């Protein structure tokens, strides 16, 4: 006999092996873990601005997941593209930075040194700049500060 169980009390994981219907073009997921994503976040934001904004405007139109699949694929392809480009052009700097984030609770302020190297490399090779919207005008942004108050205790 079937009995009712709360979904979140289930011992089985919430897995559905059914693939997407074949009418939906397939797209490779980004598949990157949190630290590399955090390291690349501002470059994803700069590089994929148009796709991201398009997608979010589409989501604002209708929250149905079916509504924005096309825009979503573009967003994912763009994110995969920039991460591939990062790895092609600045692999050493990128690896250093995200490994530092991984070891430091994913705090940007703990990893300014590798971040500077990464930002420099990305600017030279890809022309992308890390810019934080809403930062105070006429002052260096937080990641450009030479002697910040908050930093790693051990240099």
């Amino acid at each position: 006999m079937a009995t009712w169980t709360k979904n979140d009390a289930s011992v089985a994981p919430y897995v559905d092996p059914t693939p997407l219907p074949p009418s939906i073009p397939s797209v490779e997921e980004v598949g990157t873990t949190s630290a590399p994503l955090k390291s690349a976040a501002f470059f994803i934001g700069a590089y994929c601005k148009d796709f991201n904004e398009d997608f979010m405007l589409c989501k604002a139109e209708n929250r149905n997941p079916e509504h924005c699949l096309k825009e979503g694929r573009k967003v994912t392809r763009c994110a995969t593209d920039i991460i591939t480009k990062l790895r092609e052009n600045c692999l050493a700097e990128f690896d250093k930075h995200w490994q530092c984030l991984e070891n430091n609770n994913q705090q940007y302020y703990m990893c300014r040194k590798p971040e500077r190297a990464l930002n420099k490399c990305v600017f030279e090779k890809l022309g992308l700049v890390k810019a934080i919207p809403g930062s105070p005008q006429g002052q260096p942004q937080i990641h450009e500060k030479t002697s910040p108050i908050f930093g790693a205790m051990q240099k």
Partner: protein
Amino acid sequence: MSVPYRQDLPPPGGFEAIKYKRNLPFKGPSGIVMLAGVTLFCGYGFYRVGQGNLEKRELKREKTWARIHLVPMLLAEGDRDAYRRQQAALEREKEIMKDVPGWEAGKSVYHDKKHVPRESIVVL
């Protein structure tokens, strides 16, 4: 025994001056100097706290924007997965309810056209 007469006189050069002046050795900086010093010290400390608060605000802004930049990518991935599960659930519903006449698989319980996510999922 007789002692030769000798008048008692001051020592050659006279007596030394009488020490009537107060002897007050230097005992450290005065109150006003200490007060000024402490004020300066605390002032610098508060200045650093202020600067630190501004910096904290910027760090928070940085973290928030890093997340904002990642939202579309993560949402797109989640949407694809949600759509896939939705379609699978719809197929299952169609299969299970195929013998019930008049049953519309996947029909919303609301008249509203707005998308309402499913309240419950079927854990396979």
